[in-house]
């Protein structure tokens, strides 16, 4: 894709800027329809219908109407808030979660940036989001926001360690940080996927990664930072209108980013499950987005199945269950690789 565009436009900077807009073309419509999708899924799980009127067919335009409303909303910055930080926070949160897409290979032909430390970069850049959340909570000068932000930060940093260790186990098998390279190592039938390699170590690793990534993106059952019934809306309580919409968008962008990483690491990324059948750059995009959406569906499914954890249970799961298992996975994979080569 890069070579083709450079041939076409003869301008490197323009090509890279265009390529940097590609994930946006996916993320924004995805966020819009994932919200609608989530409402429909929750409704059907609770034997309701959910939005049915807007747009005609099953209320598909509900979130489009929502965003149109949010654009017209008055922008309120509380007089008690720290104005500069309040304005800066959405930039940090969105830029942080969007920058993670730079290393995610959507297809064999497209990756935003082919840096050779892709995985390491994704782990580090997604930590910027925490700074943004803390900034939003602190700047709002609102008790709900403050508690939400503190809980969010404690939760995200606690679960970053199991995430990093689960990723480490994959790196130990693959021997590279490059996400495209990791995809290429999993080419072939689905039993070549890392999910089924070094069984059961990477299988356990994938479960650890999935559970911890749920906490990273503040999804139920780890949604105590945004527990509606106790904290109103968590760190974005004071945000309204477009600022709120952008914070919400970056949450959905984060949801897809962690799903995309899980897809790449454990489910073969853009590889077709059936060897050469339906493979190629365009089918690769289809498989990649399909596998990612499957993770998104599981996240939504869990939200309407499991109750919220208490804060002490949250710390228990993170520090006393996931971390020992993650260490066991890392050491187990290490011994396997060293013994068998």
């Amino acid at each position, binding site marked *: 894709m890069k070579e083709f565009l450079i041939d076409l436009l003869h301008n490197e900077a323009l090509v890279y800027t265009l390529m940097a807009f590609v994930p946006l073309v996916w993320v924004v419509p995805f966020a819009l329809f994932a919200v609608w999708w989530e409402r429909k899924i929750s409704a059907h799980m609770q034997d309701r219908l959910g939005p049915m009127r807007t747009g005609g067919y099953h209320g598909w335009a509900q979130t489009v109407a929502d965003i149109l409303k949010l654009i017209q909303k008055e922008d309120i910055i509380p007089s008690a808030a720290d104005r500069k930080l309040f304005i800066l926070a959405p930039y940090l949160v969105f830029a942080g979660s969007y920058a993670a897409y730079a290393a995610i290979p959507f297809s064999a032909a497209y990756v935003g940036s082919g840096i050779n430390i892709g995985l390491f970069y994704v782990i580090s850049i997604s930590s910027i989001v925490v700074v943004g959340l803390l900034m939003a909570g602190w700047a709002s000068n609102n*008790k709900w926001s403050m508690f939400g932000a503190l809980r969010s930060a404690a939760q995200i940093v606690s679960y970053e360690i199991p995430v990093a260790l689960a990723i480490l186990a994959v790196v130990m098998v693959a021997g590279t940080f490059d996400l495209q390279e990791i995809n290429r190592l999993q080419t072939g039938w689905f039993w070549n996927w890392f999910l089924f390699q070094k069984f059961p170590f990477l299988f356990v690793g994938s479960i650890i990664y999935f559970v911890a990534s749920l906490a990273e993106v503040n999804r139920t059952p780890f949604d105590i930072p945004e527990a509606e019934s106790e904290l109103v809306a968590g760190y974005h309580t*004071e945000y309204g209108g477009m600022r709120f919409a952008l914070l919400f968008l970056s949450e959905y962008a984060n949801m897809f980013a962690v799903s995309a990483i899980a897809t790449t690491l454990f489910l073969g990324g853009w590889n077709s499950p059936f060897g050469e059948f339906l493979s190629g750059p365009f089918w690769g995009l289809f498989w990649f987005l399909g596998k990612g959406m499957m993770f998104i569906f599981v996240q939504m499914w869990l939200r309407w199945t499991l109750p919220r954890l208490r804060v002490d249970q*949250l*710390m228990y799961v993170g520090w006393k269950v996931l971390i020992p298992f993650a260490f066991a996975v890392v050491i187990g994979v290490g011994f396997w690789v060293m013994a068998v080569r």
Partner: protein
Amino acid sequence: MITEFGRVLIFLIVGGVFVAGGLLFAWLLRPNRPYPSKLTTYECGEVPVGDTRVRFNIRFYVVALIFLIFDVEVVFLFPWAVVYKNLGWFAFIEMLVFLGILLVGYAYVWRKGDLDWDKPSPKVPSYEKGIGVRETHLTEEETAV
């Protein structure tokens, strides 16, 4: 010549520009009629009580400290994970020792109870026994919490 990290920078800039563009677009359309009570902090519709920036639970600080140690550990593990296959058993055992030291510290922190969150300790009001006062049926252990 734009390097691969230059392309990452372009991504960051595009993210920022998207936020700025969205806010600018909304700024053109939205009304702006602020008045003092609209600009108060939200606190369930009541007048806010006190300041937000008060002392909060020390546990958050402890969690951040423990996180820092583990995260530095993981940072050291990552470069090792790429090359350890070529370095042989020596590098592997070396890293096991390194992990072992951390795990001893982890066991210590666990034993000290620093990984536990403070459980809420409800204050059980003590009533004099009398007519109309319900006797609280609590075991000794529960009263001690």
